[in-house]
């Protein structure tokens, strides 16, 4: 017996704003993530491997607010957070405010498995990533026009972050 659930963010959006093309794109990437995790579980693989496989696909998709496609900070950067936990022994790893790691979920898992700590932040987390062989990903990789426009709209219209983010993604 195995089971998998995934999410790509929650929010409030008028269904009329969800065009058929947009909907198809989101559903396709959700399905890819679901299929990747399901295959691992169906083949007898571990829950840890399954969730990482599913999350990596969504981090690599520009549609979701994680990894590539992350929202912009006030300063125009993309700062990423992630955490992971293993129910077998409650081992856990987490990172926050990293800017140079393509797949933060893998860094969180490396904190879990290759350090005596649970939670690393900022430059320290990035230094730890380099020491463990993670490639330094340039900031352009994470930036998408859609998210940049959201930041510009927030600043121009003096909106709060909640005004802009109170929607899908």
């Amino acid at each position, binding site marked *: *017996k*195995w*089971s*998998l*659930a*995934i*999410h790509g*963010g*929650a929010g409030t*959006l008028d*269904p009329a704003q*969800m065009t058929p093309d947009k*909907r198809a794109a*989101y*559903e*396709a990437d959700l*399905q890819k993530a*679901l*299929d990747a*995790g399901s295959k691992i*579980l169906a083949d*007898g693989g*571990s*829950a*840890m491997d*399954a*969730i990482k496989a599913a*999350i990596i696909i969504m*981090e690599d998709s520009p549609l*979701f607010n*994680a*990894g590539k496609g*992350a*929202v912009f*900070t*006030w300063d125009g950067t*993309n*700062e*990423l*957070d*992630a*955490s992971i*936990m293993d*129910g*077998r022994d*409650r081992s856990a790893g*987490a990172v*926050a405010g990293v800017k140079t790691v393509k797949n*933060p979920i893998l860094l*969180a898992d490396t904190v879990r498995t290759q350090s005596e700590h*649970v939670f690393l*932040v900022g430059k320290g987390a990035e230094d730890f990533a380099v020491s463990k062989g993670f490639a330094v990903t340039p900031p352009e990789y*994470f930036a998408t026009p859609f*998210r940049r426009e959201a930041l510009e709209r*927030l*600043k121009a219209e003096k909106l*709060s*972050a*909640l005004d802009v983010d109170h929607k899908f*993604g």
Partner: protein
Amino acid sequence: TVGAVALDSQGNLAAGTSTGGMTGKRWGRVGDAPLIGAGTYADNRACAVSATGWGEYFIRVGVAHEICSKIRRPEPQCGVVESDDGVGGHVECRSFRALSQERAQAAADAVMADVKELGGDGGVILVTPEGHAIFSFNTTGMYRGRATSAGVREVAIFGGEEKASKTP
């Protein structure tokens, strides 16, 4: 924010969450996603949870751990049962009752109601040791999907359409 939770065929649970945070965030703001117990939690005795939503409220409620604590299995109670003839005996452990999907759903819904009462919104996904894959959210929708060895395989976006959206 994205996340995944799973139960594998060995009976082990896992949870993970990843996010870019909020647009225009300043002052090193961090939400619930990287916080173990708020945005992410996994315990084989209870459940695996990943959350998404207004992080400040999820932190205050401790959403992921709170859900798991509500449905944690009791430790097996063991004791010596003496034999009828009074000579010797054996150890017996009282088994726990399997968690129903309704009870797991109720636990998730109760915690999300608590988030809403404080003024927050968002959603959670969870799986249980019994293999239930559950969603609970108080927004109009949540990008989501679930699959199980029993043949469930679906993705959905808005509320109340769990069975409406198959593979595109």
